[in-house]
């Protein structure tokens, strides 16, 4: 008798899209609120965004249980950091921590596709984009998740970052104003909702700037 194989998978894709855009003095992080499994919708009001520190906000899509565990893990590590250093973690520091945490499970990965947004130590917007095992880079904007293939080309068209090979080095952050960036995010999600079945229901937007943190919501198509 051949060895029986397990007929269950430890992974599931609960769908959804995440976007982050960095500005000169702000950062916009957005994600839809739909949680799906297979062809079913589990809930229309699930937040994929997690505030890790005063100046770091992460949006993750993929396998929800892994995303939740990852967010919990990072929040716990941030608390320890605060106890040890008596200050908040900077966004670049959180970015490195996220990368290391993901790679730690290189051989049983967190099925989480992350974008980390925030303000760097100079108050400029920063966005870091990741794959499931922790490879990351700082960029001016990024999209992850089920709608990323629909969203990213459009962001490239509207926000094209200067090449990192240029000399002198040019800023990756967009010259758009905060309101224009938020408007772009709304447009981008409305479009992704049309063609990606896993994106829709509601859009949650978090805006980080020198004044603090702000939330905005927008209804998306529910079909």
């Amino acid at each position, binding site marked *: 008798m051949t060895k029986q194989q397990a007929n269950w998978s430890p992974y599931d894709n609960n769908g959804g899209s995440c976007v982050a855009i960095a500005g000169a003095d702000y950062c916009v992080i957005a994600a839809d609120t739909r949680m799906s499994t297979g062809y079913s919708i589990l809930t229309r009001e699930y937040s994929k965004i997690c505030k890790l520190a005063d100046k770091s906000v992460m949006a993750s899509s993929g396998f929800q*249980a892994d995303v939740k565990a990852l967010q919990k893990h990072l929040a716990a590590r941030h608390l320890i950091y605060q106890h040890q250093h008596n200050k908040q973690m900077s966004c670049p520091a959180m970015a490195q921590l996220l990368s290391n945490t993901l790679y730690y499970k290189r051989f049983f990965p967190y099925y989480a596709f992350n974008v980390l947004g925030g303000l760097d130590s100079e108050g400029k917007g920063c966005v870091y984009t990741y794959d499931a095992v922790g490879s990351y880079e700082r960029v001016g904007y990024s999209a992850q998740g089920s709608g990323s293939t629909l969203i990213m080309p459009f962001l490239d068209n509207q926000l094209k970052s200067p090449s990192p090979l240029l000399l002198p080095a040019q800023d990756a952050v967009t010259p758009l104003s905060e309101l224009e960036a938020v408007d772009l995010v709304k447009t981008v999600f409305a479009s992704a909702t049309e063609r990606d079945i896993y994106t829709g229901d509601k859009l949650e937007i978090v805006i980080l700037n020198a004044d603090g943190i702000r939330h905005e919501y927008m209804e998306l198509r529910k079909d």
Partner: protein
Amino acid sequence: MATTMVKENNAGPAQLLGPESASERTLYPYVTGTSVVALKYKDGILMAADMAASYGSTLRYKSVERMKSIGKHSLLGASGEISDFQEILRYLDELILYDNMWDDGNSLGPKEVHSYLTRVMYNRRNKFNPLWNSLVLGGVKNGQKYLGMVSMIGVNFEDNHVATGFGNHLARPILRDEWHENLSFEDGVKLLEKCMRVLLYRDRSAINKLQIAKITEEGVTISQPYALKTFWGFSAFQNPTVGAEGSW
């Protein structure tokens, strides 16, 4: 299924077999319960589940209580492997015992129990030995209503109405259409019965013997088992083979 039931060794744990030992991890479920449906209403949570436990295609047990009260503030309903549900009840017994032993006037609410269950399910999934259940956790504490769900791989969320298994496909659409805030108890029961009736017609592992459980600030009440009225008098059922001749 019966042929794969017998483990390779009859005496002693599998480790004694040496390098080619059988894994003792869960591969598939054996005795399973079908959907659980639950919704929030004015005073708390209403939950419904039938009393069947199937052994593959055999309806093996017909008086299984798939909903149990947990502590003072929570109600747990489970679908999937019944033995794993019983194991979870043992874990929760211990959790509630330790909670009571603090004797500090505080008690675990539904949110806390849901969080605990999520961690248990996720950790078992991490060890590739899952508890094969989809759990529905509802409750009321200090006027706050809570209704959540955890799957066997740790996927969890809360919402105004939840369902497991076939209930996701058949009951959730009805609930999305007809649920609203502050349902009365009667309307809540009617809505749940509507969902359970559809499941009875369309889920082959469902039986017409169900319980409805209610949890409010005052506590838990689980109804006596009862049956739903069904209608089979459709004209198409009278002569089902009409038009079938020659339709090879």
